[in-house]
């Protein structure tokens, strides 16, 4: 090819506007599609296929984590139970926490973002789609590694926050702590990759006209969440790497005898760990705003305060970490500062709750299952928030630290604040993802069982905590008087589990036999509903043009669209960060096996490095080769421009 032709990126050029609609869709499907069969499954970079895969995997981990929870409830149902031994129980509660936080909660929120953000902002694929594929494989291997280790009696037994010195070289025997630390590396690499993709997608790939004040609130929530991931997750990677180094090559970061410090671990962990709560919660806030808008049948009340509340929460999230360390005897002034900041974060949360209530108040609410989940969220989350304000106070925290009161508090915040909206979101977007509706009848049963079961299970834990029951004990003597409360909690947990079971049955059944959904079954306002359900590989035959905040409500007659994109290469539109003015037609990478190969090479290095530091040297060579293979142009129309 001559240099001049290369300069022009000159190939036979077919524009979308030159083709009749049926032929255009056919040509786009060829360009953007994924091959059928196993090879296509391994190589796809379609954000919808990867997002769906991420979702299913995360829910499998939820199920596994739920089984562990039921094992703990069985063990604690009566005093001095000998069903699970102390060592196994330690592994079970550590696995439950680590699995739920790192393999379920964060990935499931990112999964929803990976699936929905490109559709909601009107583009054809996520930015860096191959990185997206790589991210999923890393997440999968990290999860498999943790559960394989557990099956081999090598599961971590140090609590989900792995405090030193318990997890350090002196007390953490065998490889259990290293498994925990390396699982962190896998899942954080995956999360960081998705965060970068979402930030760039939202900044640069929004539909023309989607200025900052027209971005859907769920997308805003994912954007703020992604920045939290970017700023918080390096802390846990630094922490877990230092821990592995202390254990493997004899560094002294956490060894007080040689100038190290055990509290340094807690600082690093919670500098990540507290934003982590908001990494899970903010996407749920975005889901809530979306569902409330659709089912209140009106535009959201207080769009700007809601966006500012998201950003304020994101910033304040980094000023709270020490409230997890009140029992360690830090200086008084520091404690007072962190008490104040912990209480301050209740302000943006309160603003959001009031905006949602105002939206429902002023609208004509339709009480469909997604909104019922949101109502369940309001009640539960407010209770969790109130106990949060309580434990922000140092004297109260010192009293209930490490008791079941705290267990109750964070389950109210996490299940009430994140899982309920998430399940509502699944009911809401399931028709878009599968093309079929979930059952309204089973959905109502699920909400009822989950709400009642949850409160009966976790509310009494407050009382058990106040009665002095510590968390993380595998059993307790009958004389403590906790037997009745625990039996009640364990029995209630069965109702909660039944709620999840109904949800899973409904999801699996509806995926095959649900009623056909159509493009926009809820008559919602955002762009993902402007395309068929499930969406085609290219998302939109013509990219939408945005003229208002609720495009599908305000442009009911005909959606404005843009033309002029080429069809023989994967082409999408780059727009300016603030105003979303069109800047360039950009290519998007094709399907590729290299992300999988790179993930395999990286996994070999990471797992090997649990056993030998030389793995980092020798294991990096295949990674380098795989990354060069990934980067090197293949002569496709996407590369040649």
């Amino acid at each position, binding site marked *: 090819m001559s*240099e001049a032709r290369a*300069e022009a*990126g000159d190939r036979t050029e077919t524009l979308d*506007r030159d083709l009749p609609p049926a032929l255009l869709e056919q040509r786009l499907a060829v360009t953007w599609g994924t091959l059928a069969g196993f090879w296509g499954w391994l190589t796809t970079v379609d954000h919808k296929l990867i997002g769906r895969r991420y979702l299913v995997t995360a829910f499998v981990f939820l199920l596994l984590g739920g089984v562990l929870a039921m094992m703990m409830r069985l063990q604690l149902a009566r005093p001095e139970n000998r069903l699970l031994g102390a060592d196994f129980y330690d592994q079970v509660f550590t696995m439950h926490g680590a699995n739920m936080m790192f393999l379920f909660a964060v990935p499931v929120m990112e999964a929803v973002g990976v699936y929905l953000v490109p559709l909601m902002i009107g583009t054809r694929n996520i*930015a*860096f789609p191959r990185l997206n594929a790589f991210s999923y494989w890393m997440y999968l291997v990290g999860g498999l590694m943790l559960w394989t280790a557990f099956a081999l009696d090598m599961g971590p037994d140090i609590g989900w926050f792995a405090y030193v010195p318990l997890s350090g070289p002196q007390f953490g025997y065998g490889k259990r702590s290293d498994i925990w630390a390396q699982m962190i590396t896998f899942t954080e690499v995956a999360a960081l990759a998705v*965060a*970068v993709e979402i*930030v*760039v997608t939202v*900044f640069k790939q929004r539909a023309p006209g989607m200025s900052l004040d027209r971005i859907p609130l769920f997308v805003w929530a994912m954007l703020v969440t992604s920045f939290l991931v*970017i*700023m918080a997750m*390096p*802390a846990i*990677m*630094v922490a877990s790497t*230092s821990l592995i*180094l202390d254990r493997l*090559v*004899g*560094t*002294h*970061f956490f*060894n007080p005898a*040689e*100038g*190290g*410090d055990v509290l*340094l671990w807690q*600082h*690093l962990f919670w*500098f990540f760990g507290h934003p982590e709560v908001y990494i899970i919660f903010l996407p749920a806030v975005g889901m809530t705003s979306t569902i409330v808008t659709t089912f209140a049948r009106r535009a959201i009340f207080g769009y700007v305060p809601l966006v500012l509340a998201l950003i304020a929460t994101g910033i304040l999230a980094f000023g709270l970490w020490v409230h997890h360390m009140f029992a360690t005897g830090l200086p008084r002034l520091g404690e007072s500062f962190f008490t104040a900041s912990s209480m301050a974060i209740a302000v943006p949360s309160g603003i959001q709750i009031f905006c949602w209530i105002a939206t429902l108040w002023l609208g004509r609410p339709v009480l469909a299952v997604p909104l019922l989940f949101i109502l369940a969220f309001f009640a539960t989350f407010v209770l969790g928030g109130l106990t949060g304000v309580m434990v922000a106070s140092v004297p109260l925290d010192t009293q209930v630290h490490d008791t079941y009161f705290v267990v109750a508090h964070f389950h109210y915040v996490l299940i009430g604040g994140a899982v309920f909206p998430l399940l509502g979101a699944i009911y809401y977007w399931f028709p878009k993802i599968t093309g079929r509706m979930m059952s309204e009848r089973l959905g109502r049963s699920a909400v009822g069982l989950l709400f009642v079961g949850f409160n009966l299970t976790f509310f009494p834990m407050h009382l058990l905590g106040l009665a002095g029951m510590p968390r993380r004990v595998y059993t307790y003597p009958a004389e403590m008087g906790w037997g009745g409360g625990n039996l009640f909690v364990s029995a209630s947990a069965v109702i909660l589990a039944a709620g999840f079971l109904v949800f899973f049955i409904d999801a699996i059944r509806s995926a095959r036999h649900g009623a056909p959904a159509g*493009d926009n079954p809820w008559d919602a306002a955002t762009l993902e509903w*402007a395309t068929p359900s499930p969406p085609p590989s290219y998302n939109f035959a013509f*990219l939408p043009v945005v003229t208002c905040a609720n495009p*599908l409500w305000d442009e009911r*007659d*005909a*959606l*404005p*669209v*843009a*033309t*002029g994109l080429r069809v023989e290469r994967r082409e999408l*539109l*780059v727009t300016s*960060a603030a105003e979303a003015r*069109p*800047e*360039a*037609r*950009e*290519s998007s990478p094709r399907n590729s096996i290299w992300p999988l190969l790179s993930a395999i090479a990286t996994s070999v290095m990471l797992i090997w490095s649990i056993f030998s530091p030389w793995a980092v040297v020798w294991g990096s060579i295949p990674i380098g080769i795989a990354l060069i293979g990934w*980067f*090197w*142009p293949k002569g496709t129309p996407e*590369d*040649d*421009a």
Partner: protein
Amino acid sequence: MRHRLALDLAALPLHGKSWSSITWWGTLAFMLIEGTGFALVIAIYLYLANIASEWPIAAPPPDLGPGTLLTVVLLVSLVPNFLVLRWADRSDVTKVRIALLVMIVFGIVPLGLRAFEFPALHTRWDSNAYGSITWILLGLHTTHLITDLIDTIVLAALMFTRHGHYKRRIGDVQDNGLYWYFVVATWLPIYAILYWGPRL
């Protein structure tokens, strides 16, 4: 749903430059991740120094020679790096090729000097917490030197093929140059803390 045509994009370029480029923003995002990582490791250094009764622990301050020389080399490398960016902006492929070869040299020399920096610390990673944090700080920056060198070599090889004439590859050169600025910029606070911190 029904459509109405509102906008035509056919006149737009087929590839965006700098802030119109997706990879440019991706590079910025990765700098933010790695910059946070560097900031945290520096924070750990200050934290450990703050609780220690003596600092450095059981060692003299590091020798200034290799680290200072490396700093000078990195600062000088900013000139060819600037030229790479400028010629890339003008799509002058021949000059870009030459400048990338120069940048490979500027990637190798600091690595050579780095080999003398570790012994100049007068401590080992397993001696005490001071040794651990200095080795990690230096090691973390070294991984950036190594990865950027490999990246530059692969990119230079690519630019000598027919692919070198595509706008997209010119964009890769610019992203790589941007990243080198980051590698140099992160070194300066690390140099100040590692070498001058113990002398305060």
